[in-house]
C-alpha cells in the first residue's frame, strides 16, 4: 500500500524544464468549411536554443492523403520560433458536406516544435516536401526522435454548420491579482482570475520556468479561479521567470495568460 502525503509546494508537472508546446489556441474553436482561423502556438522554452515550429492540419482523404491540397494549405513552418507564433489555417471547402443538426467533426491542428535541425520532418517541410501519410499520423515519427528538444502537440477544432452565436467560444480571462514586480525565493504568489465562461467546465493549468504551482490545475467555479505559484527555494542572485496559465474548456476552446517577473535570492 502506498500512502501519498499532500505536502504544500510546487508540483513537478508544472515546471517547464524542456521544450514543450504549451497551448495552441484557435481564434475560434468551432469553424465551418471554407473558413479561415488563426492559431496562436505558445512554446515553453527553458533556454535560448533556436527552435523551429511546424503547424499543420490534415483531414484524411484516404489512408495516405490529406484533403487539403498543396503544401501551403497543409502546413506552415515558423523558423526560429518565439514564445508565441501566430499562423493561419483554412478549413478545406471540400468538407462542406451536409451535417445533421448538432453534428460535428473534429479537426486536428498539430504543432511540432524542435530544436533547429533535430527533426527531419521540419527540415523536409522547409523544402516544401512532406509525405502526407506523416501529416496524417505523425506519431511514428516520434519513435526515432529524442525526448529532449522535441515537442508534438495536438489541439482539436470542431467543424460544424452552426451559426456563429451557437458555436463554442474561447474563454475570456482577466487577471484579478496584482502582478508582482519581483518575488523572493521561497515565497509564493496567489494568481486569481475571472473567467467569462462561454461554455461549461473550464480548468486552469499553471506552468512556469522556475519554481512551480502548488496544484497542476484548478477548476473554474462561479467565474473565478486561483492558483498558487511557488518561487524556487534556493536561488543565487536574481533571474526573470515566465509564468503561464492555460485555460482549457472541456467542450473545446482555450485561452492563455502569461507574465514574466523576477525572482530574487532571499537576502536581495
Amino acid at each position, binding site marked *: *500500500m502506498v*500512502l501519498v502525503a499532500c505536502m504544500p509546494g510546487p508540483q*513537478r*508537472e508544472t515546471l517547464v524544464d*524542456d521544450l*514543450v*508546446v504549451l*497551448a*495552441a489556441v484557435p481564434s475560434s474553436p468551432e469553424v465551418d468549411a471554407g473558413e479561415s482561423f488563426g492559431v496562436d502556438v505558445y512554446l515553453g522554452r527553458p533556454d535560448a536554443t533556436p527552435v523551429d515550429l511546424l503547424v499543420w492540419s490534415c483531414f484524411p482523404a484516404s489512408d495516405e492523403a490529406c484533403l487539403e491540397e498543396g503544401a501551403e494549405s497543409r502546413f506552415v513552418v515558423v523558423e526560429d520560433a518565439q514564445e508565441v507564433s501566430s499562423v493561419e489555417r483554412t478549413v478545406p471547402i471540400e468538407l462542406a458536406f451536409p451535417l445533421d443538426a448538432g453534428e460535428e467533426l473534429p479537426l486536428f491542428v498539430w504543432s511540432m516544435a524542435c530544436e533547429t535541425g533535430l527533426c527531419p520532418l521540419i527540415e523536409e517541410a522547409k523544402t516544401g516536401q512532406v509525405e502526407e501519410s506523416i501529416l496524417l499520423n*505523425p*506519431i*511514428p515519427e*516520434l*519513435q526515432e*526522435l*529524442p*525526448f529532449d528538444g*522535441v*515537442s*508534438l*502537440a*495536438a*489541439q*482539436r477544432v470542431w467543424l460544424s454548420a452552426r451559426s456563429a452565436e451557437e458555436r463554442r467560444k474561447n474563454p475570456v480571462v482577466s487577471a484579478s491579482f496584482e502582478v508582482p514586480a519581483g518575488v523572493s525565493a521561497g515565497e509564493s504568489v496567489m494568481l486569481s482570475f475571472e473567467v467569462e465562461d462561454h461554455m461549461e467546465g473550464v*480548468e486552469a*493549468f499553471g506552468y512556469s520556468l522556475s519554481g512551480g504551482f502548488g496544484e497542476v*490545475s484548478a477548476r473554474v467555479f462561479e467565474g473565478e479561479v486561483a492558483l498558487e505559484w511557488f518561487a524556487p527555494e534556493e536561488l543565487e542572485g536574481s533571474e526573470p521567470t515566465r509564468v503561464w496559465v*492555460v485555460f*482549457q474548456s472541456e467542450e*473545446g476552446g*482555450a485561452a492563455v495568460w502569461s507574465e514574466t517577473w523576477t525572482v530574487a535570492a532571499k537576502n536581495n
Partner: protein
Amino acid sequence: MFKFCSFLGLLGLFLGLAGPGPALAQEERSAETLSPPQLIAQPAVSYPEAALREGVGAQVVVQVDLDAEGRVIAVQVAEPPESGPYSTVFEASAVQAVYRFQFEPARNEAGEGVPSRILYRYVFAAERQALLAITGVLKDPVSEQGLGERQVFASRGEQTESVVSEFDGSFSFFDLESGEWVLTVEGQEARVPVTVSSGSVSEVEFYVDQAAVGRQETGFEELVVEARLPTTSVTERVLSREEISFLPGAGGDVVKVVQNLPGVGRSPLGTGNLIIRGTSPEDSGYFLDGGNIPVVFHFGGLTTVVASDTLSEVAFLPGSFSVRYGRILGGLVDLRSTTVLPAASRSYVSVDIYQATAFSEHRIGDRNAVSIAGRRSYADAVLNPILNDGNRRIQAPRYYDFQARWMHKTDSNGLLDAFFFLSDDSFRFLGPEDEGSIVQSAFGTSFQKLRVQFTQPMEKDWRFEATVLGGPQSKEFQFDGDGEAYERPFLPTTRLEFFRPDKNGPGWRFGLDLLAGVDRYLYDVPNFGTREEGESVIIAPGLYAESTLNWGPSQWVLGLRGDAMSYEDGLVGPVVDPRLGLKVDLWEGGRFIGGVGKHSQFPLTRQLLSEGEGVPGLEAAYSLQSSFGLEQVFGDALSIETVGFFQRLNNLVSGREETFRFFTGPPDFGPFDTGAYANDGTGLVCGVETLIRMDLPNTVAFLSATFSHSERQDRPDDDRELFRYDQPVVLTAVGSHDFGNGWRLGSRVRFSSGYPYTPVVNSFYDLQTREFVPVFGERSSARLPNFFSVDLRIDKEYEFQRWVLTTYLDIQNLTNTTNAEVIAWTYDYEQEEGIESNPLFPAFGLKGEW
C-alpha cells in the same frame, strides 16, 4: 537411521483415575477395580547422536495422563535422568516420544474406558545398537504416495510387534528374531511374509487398499475413510500440509508454497496469479477437490481464502494432466481437503500483524466430524483512521472468509462431505462525509460456495464419486463515481466419476463434468472503453474416459475428453482432447515420465455475446502440450526430477485488451490490441524445469529451477513477441531445519527474470485533455530488472500441559532489495518509475492450539 533402543521399563505403577478429571473423590480411584492401559504403539524417535557416539545412556521416568479413549493428554518428567551433558536432551526426547504413544485405555468393571495416569520409565540404552530387521514403505497403489500414520504389525507365532508409519509411509522394525515373520497393516487383510535373518535387512513395499481401510469404528485411532479419487497426471507435485506449513515466505500458508515449485512463474506484486509454464493466469486455475474456484488468495496474495488446516495436501499439475481436468489451457493447482475424520477435537487461534484466524474441528461419535474456521483482516481498522481526512476517505483492504464442514462416514464405508466456504475482499475510496460518502472508486471480490461430495467404494475395486460445487460469486469495480463494472457468474459444477485403480488389471476412469448456470457482466467504465452488458445461460458438459495400463516396467495412461458449451447465441465445440501419459521404471529409483495431449479452453462469455461487443462463433482455444523427463530417487533423502516441456497455443482470442484492464491485473499498460475479438492468437512455450529435493530427519530442503521461453503472436500480420509473463529464469531454494526444543529455522532465496514490457520512447501532448500520450517502442522489447529476495522464518513451539503455543517471525526480503514489479512513468513519460515490491517486511505471529 539409527533406532534408539527403548523398551517398556515399566514401573507398573498404575495410579488409575476414574471419572472426568483429577477432582474426583479419592475413593473412586481404586486400581483393583480397573484394567490398566495397554501400550499398543510406540513410534520411534532419534537417539541423541552425540550421546550415542559416547555411549551415554539414560533413564527418564515420565508421568503420563491418558483420557478415557487412551489418548496421551499430558506428559511430565517425574524422575529426570542423572545429571549430565545430555540430560536435557534425553528428557525432551522422552517426553516427545511418549506423546506419540498409543494406548488401549484403562477400563472399569463395566468395560468402559476411563482416564488414567501411569508412570513410564523410558530407557535410552547406548550399550547396544538395535539391529534393523525390516524396513519398508506403505503406498497408495494408484498415486504411489506414501501413507503415513498407519499401524504396521509384524507377527511370528504369538509374538507381535507394531510400529506406526511416518508421514511419508516409511516404517522400520528393529531387533526381530531371525525367522519367518508376517507383516500386516491396520484394516488390511493382506499378509506379507518376510524372512528376517541375522546380518541382513528385508525391504518391503506395502500397497494399501484404501477402500478397505476404515473398519475400526471405535477407539481413538484415526478412522481412515475412503480417500478422494486419485489422479493420474504425468507430472503432479504434491505437498502435504504438515510438510510445508513451516516453510519461510509463505506465512504458514500451504497454497503460497506452490509458487516456489518449478514451472511456476513469480506473480507480480505477490498477487498469487498462477503463471504456469509460460501461460497467462487466465489460462490456469485453482481447484478445490476437482471443482474450479474463482479466487484462492485474498488481496495482494496475503493468504489463502480457506484455512490451511482444512486441507490435507496441495497438488500442483503444471501440464499434461489427467482428462479429469478440463476447460483450461495451462496448468492447475488442486487444493485437496482432508478425507480423514479427526481422531480428536482440535482448535486453534492465531493472530499476526494483519489478520486473526480461528479453527476448530470435532469428532462426533464414530462416524461424524465437523469443523469450522474463519479469518478476518484488521488492516482497515488500523489504517482507516490514518488515511481518512474528511475530504477523501479510504476503506483500506478488508477481507474475511469462513468455512464450515461436515463429514459423515456411511455404513457402507462411503464418505459424505459437505463443505461451505465464503470469502469477501473489498477496497474503497469514499467521497466527503458531508456529500454522503459516495463511493468514488472500489474494487472487490466475493463468493459463497457449497461443495457436497459423496464417495462410495463399490464391488471389484470400483469407486464412485459425486461432487456438486456451486454458489454465487462476484467481482466488482467502480471508478470515478460514474463508472461501474462487475462479473457475476453463477455457474455450479457437477462431477460424477467412476474409478478403478490398476492394481489387478487395467485401471479405468469414467466421468461427467458439467458446468451449468448463468453468467452476467457489466462493463460501464468510460475510461476503459464502451459500455457492455450481457447475460447468458451457459451449459458446458464434459465427458471423459481414461485407462491405465501396465506393461512390464511401463505404465500407460490413455485419456479422452470431450467438451462443448452452449450460450445465448450458439454453441462452442464440441472439442475432443486426447491425452497420453507414460511412466517407465528404468532402473532402481529412476523413472521416465512423459505426456502429450490437447487441452481446450472456451472463450469468455463477453467475447461471445452479440448483445455486447462479442463475436458469436468464436472457437475454443487449445494448447498442444508435451513434456518428457526423468525422476531419480537416491535413497530416502534425495530425489531429482527434470522435465522438459513444449507447448503450442492455437486459436487464442485476441482483441479489446484495453477494456478489461481493471480485472486482469498487472502488468498491463499497453499498447493494446483494440480490434474486434477473433481466434487470431497463437503462442509457443518451451522450457526445462528441475526439482531437487532433500528430506532428512530434521531438515527439508528443495531447489527448483525453471528455464523457459514464451512468445505470442496476437494477429497473423503481427510479429512474434515475448509474452508479457515470460520469465526465462526462475530459481528458488527453500530449506527448513528443526533444531529441537521447538526451534525451527527456515530460509527461502528467490531469483527470477523481470517481465518484458513495451517501452515508451516518446510522447505527444493532447492539448484538449492536457495529458501526455505515450508513443510506444517495439513491443515487449524491454524487460524489468531481475527479482531477488531472501526470506527468513523462525518458529518456536512451547508445549504446555493442555495446549501448544507457536510463535513465528517471518521476515520477507531480508536484504531489503529493491525489486521493480510493474513499470510506471512520469507524467510526460520521459522517465521510468518502477512500482516496487515490499521492502524488508517482518511479520510476527502467534498460534495457540489445544
